[in-house]
Protein backbone atom coordinates (compact mmCIF):
# COMPACT_ATOMS: atom_id res chain seq x y z
CA UNK A 1 0.00 0.00 0.00
CA UNK A 2 2.79 2.52 0.80
CA UNK A 3 4.34 1.61 -2.59
CA UNK A 4 1.05 2.43 -4.29
CA UNK A 5 1.02 5.86 -2.62
CA UNK A 6 4.61 6.52 -3.71
CA UNK A 7 3.70 5.65 -7.30
CA UNK A 8 0.63 7.87 -7.07
CA UNK A 9 2.71 10.86 -5.92
CA UNK A 10 5.39 10.19 -8.55
CA UNK A 11 2.69 9.91 -11.24
CA UNK A 12 1.17 13.23 -10.20
CA UNK A 13 4.57 14.92 -10.40
CA UNK A 14 5.36 13.45 -13.83
CA UNK A 15 1.97 14.50 -15.24
CA UNK A 16 2.29 18.03 -13.87
CA UNK A 17 5.87 18.36 -15.20
CA UNK A 18 4.83 17.23 -18.70
CA UNK A 19 1.81 19.59 -18.56
CA UNK A 20 3.99 22.56 -17.54
CA UNK A 21 6.45 22.07 -20.44
CA UNK A 22 3.72 21.43 -23.04
CA UNK A 23 1.62 24.39 -21.85
CA UNK A 24 4.70 26.65 -22.02
CA UNK A 25 5.35 25.58 -25.66
CA UNK A 26 1.73 25.97 -26.78
CA UNK A 27 1.06 29.27 -25.01
CA UNK A 28 4.35 30.73 -26.32
CA UNK A 29 3.17 29.86 -29.85
CA UNK A 30 -0.29 31.38 -29.37
CA UNK A 31 0.72 34.44 -27.34
CA UNK A 32 4.07 36.13 -27.98
CA UNK A 33 4.28 37.60 -24.46
CA UNK A 34 4.42 34.09 -22.93
CA UNK A 35 7.98 33.78 -24.31
CA UNK A 36 9.05 36.00 -21.41
CA UNK A 37 7.60 33.60 -18.84
CA UNK A 38 9.33 30.41 -17.78
CA UNK A 39 6.77 28.08 -16.21
CA UNK A 40 9.25 25.18 -15.77
CA UNK A 41 11.55 27.53 -13.82
CA UNK A 42 8.66 28.67 -11.60
CA UNK A 43 7.73 25.04 -11.00
CA UNK A 44 11.35 24.15 -10.08
CA UNK A 45 11.65 27.09 -7.67
CA UNK A 46 8.28 26.52 -6.02
CA UNK A 47 8.81 22.83 -5.37
CA UNK A 48 12.39 23.57 -4.28
CA UNK A 49 10.98 25.92 -1.66
CA UNK A 50 8.10 23.77 -0.47
CA UNK A 51 9.01 20.09 -0.86
CA UNK A 52 11.72 20.15 1.80
CA UNK A 53 13.47 17.41 -0.16
CA UNK A 54 16.58 18.56 -2.08
CA UNK A 55 16.88 15.25 -3.98
CA UNK A 56 13.32 15.55 -5.34
CA UNK A 57 14.02 19.21 -6.27
CA UNK A 58 17.22 18.28 -8.12
CA UNK A 59 15.44 15.50 -10.05
CA UNK A 60 12.48 17.76 -10.84
CA UNK A 61 14.71 20.59 -12.12
CA UNK A 62 16.73 18.13 -14.12
CA UNK A 63 13.68 16.49 -15.76
CA UNK A 64 11.95 19.79 -16.53
CA UNK A 65 15.14 21.17 -18.09
CA UNK A 66 15.73 18.13 -20.28
CA UNK A 67 12.09 18.17 -21.48
CA UNK A 68 12.43 21.88 -22.31
CA UNK A 69 15.62 21.17 -24.27
CA UNK A 70 13.92 18.36 -26.21
CA UNK A 71 11.20 20.70 -27.48
CA UNK A 72 13.70 23.44 -28.24
CA UNK A 73 16.62 24.20 -30.56
CA UNK A 74 18.94 24.20 -27.53
CA UNK A 75 21.72 21.66 -27.03
CA UNK A 76 20.28 18.81 -24.95
CA UNK A 77 21.34 19.33 -21.34
CA UNK A 78 21.64 23.15 -21.40
CA UNK A 79 18.45 23.88 -19.50
CA UNK A 80 18.79 20.57 -17.66
CA UNK A 81 22.10 21.67 -16.12
CA UNK A 82 20.80 25.13 -15.29
CA UNK A 83 17.55 23.93 -13.70
CA UNK A 84 19.31 21.16 -11.75
CA UNK A 85 21.42 23.83 -10.05
CA UNK A 86 18.41 26.09 -9.50
CA UNK A 87 16.39 23.21 -8.01
CA UNK A 88 19.22 22.47 -5.57
CA UNK A 89 19.77 26.13 -4.59
CA UNK A 90 16.01 26.69 -4.17
CA UNK A 91 15.77 23.64 -1.90
CA UNK A 92 18.76 24.84 0.16
CA UNK A 93 17.27 28.34 0.40
CA UNK A 94 13.91 26.86 1.38
CA UNK A 95 15.44 25.32 4.49
CA UNK A 96 17.37 28.47 5.50
CA UNK A 97 15.10 31.43 4.68
CA UNK A 98 11.45 32.27 5.22
CA UNK A 99 10.47 31.62 1.62
CA UNK A 100 6.76 32.00 2.28
CA UNK A 101 7.29 35.78 2.63
CA UNK A 102 6.48 37.78 -0.55
CA UNK A 103 9.67 39.88 -0.31
CA UNK A 104 11.88 36.77 -0.19
CA UNK A 105 9.98 35.29 -3.12
CA UNK A 106 10.38 38.49 -5.18
CA UNK A 107 14.16 38.47 -4.66
CA UNK A 108 14.46 34.73 -5.22
CA UNK A 109 12.33 34.58 -8.40
CA UNK A 110 14.07 37.62 -9.91
CA UNK A 111 17.56 36.30 -9.17
CA UNK A 112 16.79 32.72 -10.24
CA UNK A 113 15.42 33.92 -13.61
CA UNK A 114 18.51 36.06 -14.22
CA UNK A 115 20.81 33.21 -13.15
CA UNK A 116 18.99 30.78 -15.47
CA UNK A 117 19.30 33.18 -18.45
CA UNK A 118 23.00 33.78 -17.74
CA UNK A 119 23.81 30.08 -17.31
CA UNK A 120 21.96 29.03 -20.47
CA UNK A 121 23.64 31.79 -22.55
CA UNK A 122 27.07 30.90 -21.15
CA UNK A 123 26.63 27.21 -21.97
CA UNK A 124 25.23 28.02 -25.44
CA UNK A 125 28.19 30.29 -26.23
CA UNK A 126 30.64 27.72 -24.87
CA UNK A 127 29.29 24.88 -27.01
CA UNK A 128 28.56 26.92 -30.16
CA UNK A 129 30.94 29.88 -30.46
CA UNK A 130 29.36 30.78 -33.82
CA UNK A 131 26.23 31.87 -31.95
CA UNK A 132 25.27 35.48 -32.65
CA UNK A 133 23.77 36.00 -29.15
CA UNK A 134 25.52 38.52 -26.92
CA UNK A 135 25.18 39.18 -23.20
CA UNK A 136 24.48 42.87 -23.88
CA UNK A 137 21.84 42.10 -26.48
CA UNK A 138 19.97 39.67 -24.26
CA UNK A 139 20.23 41.63 -20.99
CA UNK A 140 17.03 43.56 -21.75
CA UNK A 141 15.22 40.29 -22.44
CA UNK A 142 16.47 38.77 -19.18
CA UNK A 143 15.35 41.77 -17.11
CA UNK A 144 11.93 41.78 -18.76
CA UNK A 145 11.65 38.03 -18.28
CA UNK A 146 12.76 38.27 -14.63
CA UNK A 147 10.10 40.93 -13.98
CA UNK A 148 7.32 38.96 -15.70
CA UNK A 149 8.38 35.72 -14.03
CA UNK A 150 8.48 37.34 -10.59
CA UNK A 151 4.97 38.79 -11.02
CA UNK A 152 3.49 35.54 -12.33
CA UNK A 153 5.38 33.53 -9.74
CA UNK A 154 4.01 35.64 -6.89
CA UNK A 155 0.44 35.16 -8.12
CA UNK A 156 0.80 31.40 -8.81
CA UNK A 157 2.70 30.61 -5.61
CA UNK A 158 0.23 32.65 -3.55
CA UNK A 159 -2.69 30.86 -5.18
CA UNK A 160 -1.06 27.46 -4.66
CA UNK A 161 -0.40 28.28 -0.98
CA UNK A 162 -4.07 29.18 -0.48
CA UNK A 163 -5.17 25.99 -2.20
CA UNK A 164 -2.87 23.95 0.04
CA UNK A 165 -4.09 25.72 3.18
CA UNK A 166 -7.72 25.14 2.19
CA UNK A 167 -7.21 21.40 1.66
CA UNK A 168 -5.20 20.81 4.87
Amino acid sequence: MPHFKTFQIAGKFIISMVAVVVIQGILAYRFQVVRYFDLPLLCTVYYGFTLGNPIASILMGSSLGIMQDSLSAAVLGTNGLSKTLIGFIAASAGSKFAVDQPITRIFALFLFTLADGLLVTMITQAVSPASNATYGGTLGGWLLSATFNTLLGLVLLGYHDRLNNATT
Partner: protein
Amino acid sequence: MATIASKKPVWVTLGVALLLHTMLISLQTSRRFDTSFFRGWILDSLSPLEKLVDRTFHGTGSILDRYLALIGVHDENARLRAEVDDLKMQLAMQKEEILEADRLRKFVGLEDSRLGKPVVARVIGRDPTQSHQSVTIDKGRAHGIRPDAAVITPEGIVGRVIYAGNYSSIVQLIVDSQSGVGILVLPNRRMGIIKGSGSAELDLDYIDDDSELKEGDLMITSGDDRIYPKGLPVGKITSVGPRRGLFKTVRIRPTADLGRLEEVLCVVEKPKTIEMNPMERPAP
Protein backbone atom coordinates in the same frame (compact mmCIF):
# COMPACT_ATOMS: atom_id res chain seq x y z
CA MET B 1 29.55 15.57 11.21
CA ALA B 2 26.06 14.19 11.37
CA THR B 3 24.81 17.02 9.11
CA ILE B 4 27.44 16.29 6.46
CA ALA B 5 26.61 12.56 6.59
CA SER B 6 22.88 13.25 6.26
CA LYS B 7 23.49 15.52 3.26
CA LYS B 8 25.68 13.01 1.46
CA PRO B 9 22.89 11.57 -0.76
CA VAL B 10 21.96 15.12 -1.82
CA TRP B 11 25.51 15.92 -2.92
CA VAL B 12 25.78 12.56 -4.70
CA THR B 13 22.47 13.18 -6.56
CA LEU B 14 23.56 16.71 -7.50
CA GLY B 15 26.96 15.47 -8.67
CA VAL B 16 25.47 12.66 -10.76
CA ALA B 17 22.82 14.95 -12.33
CA LEU B 18 25.40 17.63 -13.22
CA LEU B 19 27.79 15.03 -14.59
CA LEU B 20 25.06 13.47 -16.77
CA HIS B 21 24.06 16.84 -18.23
CA THR B 22 27.68 17.85 -18.83
CA MET B 23 28.36 14.52 -20.55
CA LEU B 24 25.24 14.93 -22.70
CA ILE B 25 26.34 18.43 -23.78
CA SER B 26 29.92 17.28 -24.38
CA LEU B 27 28.85 14.25 -26.47
CA GLN B 28 26.68 16.42 -28.71
CA THR B 29 29.37 19.05 -29.13
CA SER B 30 32.08 16.57 -30.04
CA ARG B 31 29.59 14.61 -32.23
CA ARG B 32 31.03 11.36 -30.89
CA PHE B 33 27.64 10.00 -29.99
CA ASP B 34 24.27 10.52 -31.66
CA THR B 35 21.79 11.73 -29.04
CA SER B 36 19.00 12.34 -31.55
CA PHE B 37 17.23 9.09 -30.54
CA PHE B 38 16.87 10.41 -26.98
CA ARG B 39 15.51 13.79 -28.13
CA GLY B 40 13.31 12.06 -30.71
CA TRP B 41 11.90 9.78 -28.02
CA ILE B 42 10.91 12.70 -25.74
CA LEU B 43 9.68 14.72 -28.76
CA ASP B 44 7.46 11.85 -29.95
CA SER B 45 6.14 11.32 -26.42
CA LEU B 46 5.21 14.98 -25.89
CA SER B 47 4.06 15.98 -29.38
CA PRO B 48 0.72 14.01 -29.35
CA LEU B 49 -0.25 16.07 -26.31
CA GLU B 50 0.82 19.26 -28.09
CA LYS B 51 -1.19 18.27 -31.17
CA LEU B 52 -4.26 17.54 -29.05
CA VAL B 53 -4.15 20.90 -27.27
CA ASP B 54 -3.40 22.70 -30.55
CA ARG B 55 -6.38 21.05 -32.29
CA THR B 56 -8.63 22.07 -29.36
CA PHE B 57 -7.39 25.68 -29.55
CA HIS B 58 -7.66 25.69 -33.34
CA GLY B 59 -11.11 24.04 -33.36
CA THR B 60 -12.60 26.54 -30.93
CA GLY B 61 -11.04 29.44 -32.84
CA SER B 62 -12.24 28.23 -36.25
CA ILE B 63 -15.88 27.83 -35.12
CA LEU B 64 -15.86 31.48 -34.05
CA ASP B 65 -14.03 32.54 -37.23
CA ARG B 66 -16.55 30.75 -39.48
CA TYR B 67 -19.46 32.64 -37.94
CA LEU B 68 -17.67 35.97 -38.22
CA ALA B 69 -16.52 35.21 -41.79
CA LEU B 70 -20.13 35.15 -43.06
CA ILE B 71 -20.27 38.93 -42.67
CA GLY B 72 -19.52 40.54 -46.05
CA VAL B 73 -19.01 37.20 -47.80
CA HIS B 74 -20.97 38.24 -50.94
CA ASP B 75 -18.75 41.25 -51.68
CA GLU B 76 -15.63 39.26 -50.98
CA ASN B 77 -16.84 36.51 -53.35
CA ALA B 78 -17.24 38.98 -56.21
CA ARG B 79 -13.80 40.46 -55.56
CA LEU B 80 -12.19 37.01 -55.45
CA ARG B 81 -13.86 35.96 -58.75
CA ALA B 82 -12.34 39.00 -60.45
CA GLU B 83 -8.98 38.18 -58.89
CA VAL B 84 -9.19 34.54 -60.09
CA ASP B 85 -9.85 35.71 -63.68
CA ASP B 86 -6.87 38.02 -63.49
CA LEU B 87 -4.62 35.28 -62.08
CA LYS B 88 -5.75 32.81 -64.79
CA MET B 89 -4.57 35.29 -67.42
CA GLN B 90 -1.22 35.72 -65.64
CA LEU B 91 -0.86 31.94 -65.28
CA ALA B 92 -1.39 31.34 -68.98
CA MET B 93 1.31 33.90 -69.80
CA GLN B 94 3.74 32.47 -67.25
CA LYS B 95 3.23 28.90 -68.52
CA GLU B 96 4.60 30.05 -71.85
CA GLU B 97 7.59 31.65 -70.11
CA ILE B 98 8.28 28.43 -68.14
CA LEU B 99 8.23 26.35 -71.32
CA GLU B 100 10.63 28.80 -72.93
CA ALA B 101 12.94 28.70 -69.86
CA ASP B 102 12.89 24.87 -69.95
CA ARG B 103 13.90 24.87 -73.59
CA LEU B 104 16.75 27.32 -72.92
CA ARG B 105 17.90 25.34 -69.83
CA LYS B 106 18.18 22.18 -71.93
CA PHE B 107 19.92 24.12 -74.66
CA VAL B 108 22.75 25.36 -72.37
CA GLY B 109 22.96 22.11 -70.37
CA LEU B 110 21.59 23.33 -67.01
CA GLU B 111 19.74 20.95 -64.70
CA ASP B 112 16.29 21.67 -63.28
CA SER B 113 16.60 24.05 -60.30
CA ARG B 114 12.97 24.24 -59.17
CA LEU B 115 11.83 23.58 -55.62
CA GLY B 116 12.11 19.98 -54.36
CA LYS B 117 9.19 17.89 -53.10
CA PRO B 118 7.26 19.85 -50.46
CA VAL B 119 5.31 18.45 -47.47
CA VAL B 120 2.70 20.66 -45.78
CA ALA B 121 3.09 20.75 -41.98
CA ARG B 122 1.27 22.52 -39.20
CA VAL B 123 3.04 24.46 -36.44
CA ILE B 124 1.95 23.04 -33.07
CA GLY B 125 4.25 24.70 -30.59
CA ARG B 126 7.02 27.19 -30.00
CA ASP B 127 10.37 26.97 -28.23
CA PRO B 128 9.67 26.66 -24.48
CA THR B 129 12.96 28.45 -23.72
CA GLN B 130 13.84 32.10 -24.26
CA SER B 131 17.37 31.48 -25.46
CA HIS B 132 16.40 29.96 -28.80
CA GLN B 133 13.93 30.63 -31.61
CA SER B 134 12.33 27.45 -32.90
CA VAL B 135 8.91 25.92 -33.57
CA THR B 136 7.57 22.37 -33.43
CA ILE B 137 5.78 21.02 -36.54
CA ASP B 138 3.45 18.03 -36.73
CA LYS B 139 5.41 16.09 -39.39
CA GLY B 140 8.51 13.95 -38.93
CA ARG B 141 10.59 11.13 -40.36
CA ALA B 142 7.45 9.11 -41.14
CA HIS B 143 6.52 11.86 -43.63
CA GLY B 144 9.98 12.01 -45.20
CA ILE B 145 11.32 14.92 -43.16
CA ARG B 146 15.03 14.79 -42.30
CA PRO B 147 17.39 17.20 -40.50
CA ASP B 148 18.44 20.17 -42.67
CA ALA B 149 15.17 20.15 -44.67
CA ALA B 150 14.30 23.73 -45.64
CA VAL B 151 11.03 25.08 -44.20
CA ILE B 152 9.30 27.83 -46.17
CA THR B 153 6.04 29.74 -46.63
CA PRO B 154 4.83 31.53 -49.79
CA GLU B 155 6.07 34.80 -48.23
CA GLY B 156 9.62 33.58 -47.63
CA ILE B 157 11.91 31.13 -45.87
CA VAL B 158 11.17 30.17 -42.25
CA GLY B 159 14.12 28.02 -41.16
CA ARG B 160 15.49 24.49 -41.27
CA VAL B 161 14.67 21.24 -39.51
CA ILE B 162 17.28 20.53 -36.85
CA TYR B 163 15.73 17.50 -35.12
CA ALA B 164 13.26 15.11 -36.73
CA GLY B 165 11.25 12.75 -34.56
CA ASN B 166 8.97 10.12 -36.10
CA TYR B 167 5.83 12.26 -36.07
CA SER B 168 7.08 15.77 -35.25
CA SER B 169 10.15 17.91 -35.82
CA ILE B 170 11.91 20.97 -34.42
CA VAL B 171 12.49 23.82 -36.87
CA GLN B 172 15.20 26.37 -36.12
CA LEU B 173 13.89 29.76 -37.29
CA ILE B 174 16.17 32.00 -39.39
CA VAL B 175 16.10 34.61 -36.58
CA ASP B 176 17.70 32.16 -34.10
CA SER B 177 21.13 33.35 -32.96
CA GLN B 178 22.75 30.19 -34.35
CA SER B 179 21.13 30.38 -37.78
CA GLY B 180 22.79 31.59 -41.00
CA VAL B 181 21.54 31.94 -44.60
CA GLY B 182 23.42 32.50 -47.87
CA ILE B 183 21.79 35.41 -49.71
CA LEU B 184 21.79 37.52 -52.86
CA VAL B 185 20.83 41.19 -52.59
CA LEU B 186 18.48 42.44 -55.30
CA PRO B 187 18.80 44.26 -57.64
CA ASN B 188 22.64 44.16 -57.88
CA ARG B 189 22.88 40.44 -56.92
CA ARG B 190 25.72 40.91 -54.41
CA MET B 191 26.35 37.67 -52.46
CA GLY B 192 26.42 37.59 -48.69
CA ILE B 193 25.57 35.79 -45.46
CA ILE B 194 23.02 36.88 -42.89
CA LYS B 195 22.71 35.59 -39.32
CA GLY B 196 19.89 35.52 -36.81
CA SER B 197 20.19 37.88 -33.87
CA GLY B 198 17.85 36.12 -31.46
CA SER B 199 15.34 38.99 -31.88
CA ALA B 200 12.73 39.60 -34.61
CA GLU B 201 15.37 40.73 -37.13
CA LEU B 202 18.51 39.41 -38.82
CA ASP B 203 22.02 40.89 -39.09
CA LEU B 204 24.27 41.08 -42.13
CA ASP B 205 27.37 38.98 -41.42
CA TYR B 206 29.25 39.16 -44.71
CA ILE B 207 28.81 40.71 -48.17
CA ASP B 208 30.95 41.22 -51.28
CA ASP B 209 30.39 44.96 -51.37
CA ASP B 210 28.12 46.91 -49.02
CA SER B 211 28.40 50.32 -50.73
CA GLU B 212 25.11 50.05 -52.61
CA LEU B 213 22.92 48.65 -49.81
CA LYS B 214 19.83 50.70 -48.98
CA GLU B 215 16.61 50.38 -47.00
CA GLY B 216 13.94 48.30 -48.72
CA ASP B 217 16.39 46.13 -50.74
CA LEU B 218 15.10 42.57 -51.02
CA MET B 219 17.31 39.60 -50.15
CA ILE B 220 16.77 36.19 -51.71
CA THR B 221 18.42 32.83 -51.01
CA SER B 222 21.62 32.17 -52.98
CA GLY B 223 21.41 28.38 -52.61
CA ASP B 224 25.09 28.28 -51.55
CA ASP B 225 24.29 27.02 -48.05
CA ARG B 226 22.90 23.80 -49.61
CA ILE B 227 19.85 24.02 -47.35
CA TYR B 228 17.53 26.57 -48.95
CA PRO B 229 16.65 26.37 -52.66
CA LYS B 230 17.87 29.35 -54.69
CA GLY B 231 15.67 32.39 -55.31
CA LEU B 232 13.32 32.35 -52.31
CA PRO B 233 12.61 35.64 -50.51
CA VAL B 234 14.43 36.00 -47.17
CA GLY B 235 13.91 39.54 -45.95
CA LYS B 236 14.04 43.27 -46.61
CA ILE B 237 16.63 45.72 -45.30
CA THR B 238 15.09 47.90 -42.59
CA SER B 239 18.16 49.95 -41.65
CA VAL B 240 21.70 50.56 -42.87
CA GLY B 241 23.91 51.92 -40.10
CA PRO B 242 27.55 53.03 -39.90
CA ARG B 243 30.40 50.63 -40.53
CA ARG B 244 31.28 48.38 -37.56
CA GLY B 245 34.34 46.30 -38.32
CA LEU B 246 34.49 45.26 -41.97
CA PHE B 247 30.87 45.85 -42.91
CA LYS B 248 28.04 48.29 -42.33
CA THR B 249 25.48 47.45 -39.63
CA VAL B 250 22.53 46.18 -41.63
CA ARG B 251 19.26 44.96 -40.09
CA ILE B 252 16.92 42.76 -42.11
CA ARG B 253 13.27 41.95 -41.38
CA PRO B 254 12.16 38.48 -42.60
CA THR B 255 9.49 38.56 -45.32
CA ALA B 256 7.70 35.59 -43.70
CA ASP B 257 5.74 36.52 -40.58
CA LEU B 258 7.59 34.28 -38.12
CA GLY B 259 5.40 35.36 -35.23
CA ARG B 260 2.22 34.03 -36.85
CA LEU B 261 3.18 30.79 -38.50
CA GLU B 262 0.40 28.25 -38.96
CA GLU B 263 1.08 26.08 -42.01
CA VAL B 264 4.53 25.70 -43.54
CA LEU B 265 6.10 23.75 -46.41
CA CYS B 266 9.03 21.41 -45.76
CA VAL B 267 11.25 20.70 -48.74
CA VAL B 268 11.94 16.99 -48.27
CA GLU B 269 13.75 16.34 -51.52
CA LYS B 270 16.37 18.92 -52.23
CA PRO B 271 16.45 20.32 -55.74
CA LYS B 272 19.47 19.51 -57.82
CA THR B 273 22.11 22.23 -57.75
CA ILE B 274 22.63 24.23 -60.87
CA GLU B 275 25.85 23.06 -62.44
CA MET B 276 27.09 23.54 -65.91
CA ASN B 277 27.64 20.23 -67.69
CA PRO B 278 31.39 20.32 -68.54
CA MET B 279 30.81 18.32 -71.76
CA GLU B 280 28.36 20.88 -73.03
CA ARG B 281 30.13 23.98 -71.70
CA PRO B 282 30.49 26.49 -74.54
CA ALA B 283 34.03 27.13 -75.70
CA PRO B 284 35.49 30.48 -74.57
